[in-house]
């Protein structure tokens, strides 16, 4: 597994009452690359959480449009055993030139990982037989139940689907 770590140094100016003090703060942004073999365990966890796995890419307009929905749900359900994972299908050679700048620009709080496995005909059906390969697409699962959606979501729609899972858990 290729691991790429990008370190970001931001110099933050903190204003105090009487004087200006310069503080150096380090923010680490890490986007790991996955093949199906390494992604599979993330799609099959048997813990008490419900996982929302969204397949997207920075170049996919409807995906980008629905990202705030996943961000919002991730925030709202943070303490309710729900975790959002954004699986990017951006081109592997655009990780640093496109994906990471996008995450920073949009201040994404959900976990983002990069799927780089090119043998799509093998892994797409393993994620869901229902999936044609078009994105956006989303998998929701917990240890008791799983469902795949090749569609876009609104907050209401995602919340409605998510509640079905929370009930079963």
């Amino acid at each position: 597994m290729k691991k790429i770590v990008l370190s970001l140094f931001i110099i933050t100016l903190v204003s105090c009452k009487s004087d200006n003090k310069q503080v150096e703060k380090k923010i680490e942004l890490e986007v790991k690359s996955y093949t199906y073999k390494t992604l599979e365990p993330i799609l099959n966890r048997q813990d008490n959480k419900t996982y929302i796995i969204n397949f997207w890419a920075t170049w996919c307009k409807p995906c980008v449009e629905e990202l705030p929905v996943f961000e919002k749900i991730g925030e709202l359900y943070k303490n309710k055993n729900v975790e959002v994972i954004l699986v990017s299908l951006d081109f592997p050679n655009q990780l640093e030139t496109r994906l990471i700048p996008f995450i920073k620009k949009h201040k994404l709080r959900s976990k983002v990982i990069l799927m780089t496995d090119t043998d799509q005909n093998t892994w797409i059906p393993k994620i869901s037989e229902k999936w044609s390969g078009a994105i956006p697409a989303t998998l929701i699962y917990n240890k008791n139940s799983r469902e795949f959606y090749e569609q876009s979501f609104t907050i209401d729609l995602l919340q409605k689907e998510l509640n079905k899972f929370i009930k079963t858990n």
Partner: protein
Amino acid sequence: MKTFKTLFILTIFTIVSAFTLKTSSEGYKIGDTATDFKLKNIDGKMVSMADYKHAKGFIVIFTCNHCPYSIAYEDRIIELDKNYKEKGYSVIAINPNNPEISKGDDFISMQKRAKEKGFTFPYLFDDGQNIYPQYGASRTPHVFLLNKEGKDLKVAYIGAIDNNYSDAEAVTEKYVEDAINALIDGEKPNPNFTKAIGCSIKK
């Protein structure tokens, strides 16, 4: 009474059309007969598969301007057309997107892109978006390989062009080429159906 009768007929009609629509939205399966179309090409002329009198089949590819996966495959689509046109299998590219929603997929942009890349094949606009649902295309690029059997065009392969979108050099399985070669040899393509990531078609 008359109102009741009209209502009854209308209800039946709605039920029947609901089922009919459901069937057509699922699109083609291997072995189905593909419909011909009459769509506007980038040169302004209308193109149908019936225009190709000596065709043995067609490589129908739903693709577009804006999608990075489509762009990644442009050169490979040109190669396919060059290699198989003379063997009777020409590429026909169709842009299925609604340009009002999908920026960069309008007719003028199609003309521009085809010129820039030197497309050797028709690049048609699915005006009104009537053709792609019949085929069952869901993403770009999405290939439907058709083989002429008697008067019919039968769907012989559906799916991806090959097994590596990001690097043409690293491809190990050329699905479409293998499928056409099988047809030329009088065999059935194997695999005849593959999946790949693509941009959803913009309605």
